[in-house]
């Protein structure tokens, strides 16, 4: 609090300088000049809104991570893919220019999964990255705000021919720990570097239900099925342990990549752990998302017995270690008009104002993209990104700062196959190239 004897001029000077100082030197995004300078100003709303770019950590700080650099033998340059669909319409061009230019997809068409870096606007493959031995497949990917830094989780591959799960799941070796890697790439030369993050814990893949890299790329949040906060270690054999002081149950652990230091939050108490999840029911789902300031972590939470699905907001700077302290921003069952839970991901917009998801307004109703005000918990109608009558949205993969531009996956493309594209102003613009056919994707 400022001194009460300060004059209005002094208060104004201090406040404006503090606001200006939030913009760090070297943090300006690249200038993107128009391809056709004689075409006149861009229409209102056509500007790029990559609000989560702003908290990019200086590379020097991130480079301090103590880790082993994996040799480039894990990197294969690929021939650029042919952009699909020919020239984009003006509206399509505006949509394409409003999303991050690259994404990393874990391929599921050919297991074990590789990580493919693609250009969003053209579908061109920048690089393909294989998991380094002894790992056989990537299982999670999450991106930082700079659109050049990603974290990949890798798992060993254990070919077997029988089991209770699907073929891919059966062949994953769930008895050995996950390995984490940071992927950085330079699209101008097609170079990518995979760095082992050795300070992260060696958890089994069955314990992790999702990952979320902070916007500045320095911290990784893990959604865990069982976590103990306090004196004892988490049990490995299931949900039988009752909640106890200090907490044992589903939780979230946030790790600082440079040091391995972590903080954990757990959902303790009488609710049976088997009924309570942090995450969603989609394989490879993205149950965690951050606000641009790296402070608020949104997570999906549901209890089977209560039939309640919520999106809660965890203030990672608060002293509490209980997820019960995380505010329920949206509750889907019995909440206003919305009678059904979200399908797939629920993403907080980087400006922290909205939760974006796919849900239906009435039980059994048609699923559609919905955006909820974090402040009120109520749907924003119409949603800022609009909606489409012809396509059935299936999952939200990315949202710009304010939820005006989304990347969504639909299940009703022209061929009936999943189709990924940009939803903006009520218009769906398919991303060039084939349907992603991925198990996990991050922008």
């Amino acid at each position, binding site marked *: 609090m400022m001194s009460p004897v300060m004059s209005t001029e002094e208060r104004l000077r201090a406040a404006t300088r503090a606001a200006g100082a939030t913009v760090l030197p070297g943090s300006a995004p690249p200038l*993107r000049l128009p391809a056709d300078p004689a075409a006149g100003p861009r229409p209102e709303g056509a500007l790029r809104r990559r609000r989560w770019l702003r908290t990019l950590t200086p590379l020097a700080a991130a480079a301090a991570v103590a880790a082993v650099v994996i040799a480039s033998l894990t990197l294969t340059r690929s021939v650029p893919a042919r952009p699909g669909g020919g020239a984009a319409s003006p509206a399509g061009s505006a949509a394409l220019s409003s999303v991050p230019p690259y994404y990393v997809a874990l391929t599921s068409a050919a297991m074990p999964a590789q990580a493919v870096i693609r250009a969003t606007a053209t579908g061109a493959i920048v690089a393909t990255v294989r998991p380094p031995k002894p790992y056989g497949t990537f299982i999670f990917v999450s991106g930082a705000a700079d659109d050049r830094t990603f974290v990949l989780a890798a798992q060993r591959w254990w070919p077997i021919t029988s089991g209770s799960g699907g073929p891919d799941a059966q062949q994953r070796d769930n008895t050995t720990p996950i390995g984490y890697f940071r992927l950085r790439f330079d699209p101008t030369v097609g170079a990518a570097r995979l760095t082992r993050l050795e300070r992260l814990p060696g958890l089994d893949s069955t314990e992790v239900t999702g990952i979320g890299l902070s916007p500045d790329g320095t911290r990784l949040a893990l959604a865990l099925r069982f976590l103990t906060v306090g004196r004892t270690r988490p049990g490995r054999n299931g949900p039988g342990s009752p909640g106890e002081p200090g907490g044992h149950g589903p939780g979230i652990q946030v790790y600082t990549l440079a040091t391995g230091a972590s903080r954990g939050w757990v959902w303790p108490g009488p609710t049976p752990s088997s009924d309570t999840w942090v995450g969603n029911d989609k394989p490879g789902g993205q149950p965690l998302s951050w606000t641009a300031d790296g402070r608020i972590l949104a997570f999906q939470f549901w209890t089977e017995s209560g039939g309640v699905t919520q999106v809660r907001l965890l203030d990672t700077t608060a002293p509490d270690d209980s997820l019960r302290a995380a505010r329920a921003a949206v509750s889907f069952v019995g909440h206003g008009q919305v009678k059904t839970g979200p399908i797939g991901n629920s993403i907080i917009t980087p400006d922290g104002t909205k939760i974006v998801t796919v849900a239906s307004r009435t039980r059994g109703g048609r699923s559609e993209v919905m955006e909820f005000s974090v402040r009120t918990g109520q749907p924003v109608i119409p949603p800022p990104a609009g909606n489409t009558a012809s396509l059935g949205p299936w999952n939200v993969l990315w949202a710009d700062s304010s939820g005006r531009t989304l990347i969504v996956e639909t299940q009703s493309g022209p061929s009936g196959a999943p189709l990924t594209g940009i939803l903006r102003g009520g218009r769906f613009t398919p991303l060039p190239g084939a349907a992603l056919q991925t198990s996990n994707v991050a922008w």
Partner: protein
Amino acid sequence: MGARAGWPDSGAGWPDGAAREDAAQAVTALYEAHAVGLIRLAVVMLGDRAAAEDVVQEAFCGLYRRWGQLDEPGKAQSYVRAATLNGCRSELRQRIRAQRRGGPAPDAADAVSAEQAALLGEEHQLVLTALRRLPDRQREALVLRFYLDQSEPEIAAAMGISRGTVKSTTSRALAALGRLLQEAGR
């Protein structure tokens, strides 16, 4: 601004080929030198980093489009600063219009991003919110005077008003800001 000698006119004085490349390089160099300062200025005006980046991007794109018409490249910096201020003014007006329409755009004319709210303390946020409630001219005069530390002649030139008007506008703006802060209980 007349067409710059040596550049073939194309449409609105737009250069072709190598000249276009030179223009892109020159504008990019200017951007690299001044973008952070202008984004800071826009953040002060708007309270939203992303919107600030958009405004500055558009200001430089505007400079690029008009590069062939610049008589004096030395005026480019003044141009982008003025364009940034204009862009901020437009952005704030759009917010107000959206608010009046009850549309899905920002909740209020003085909406700030979560990032800004987190980075700035309560006191600073209070002052900035009050600042953004002032009329355009008063707000700009205060920002130029107390954030950029510009002199009255500089402010007069930037805003296209007389020195006397700068003085009276600044005085009224400070008084109005003081009242708003008092109403807010400080």
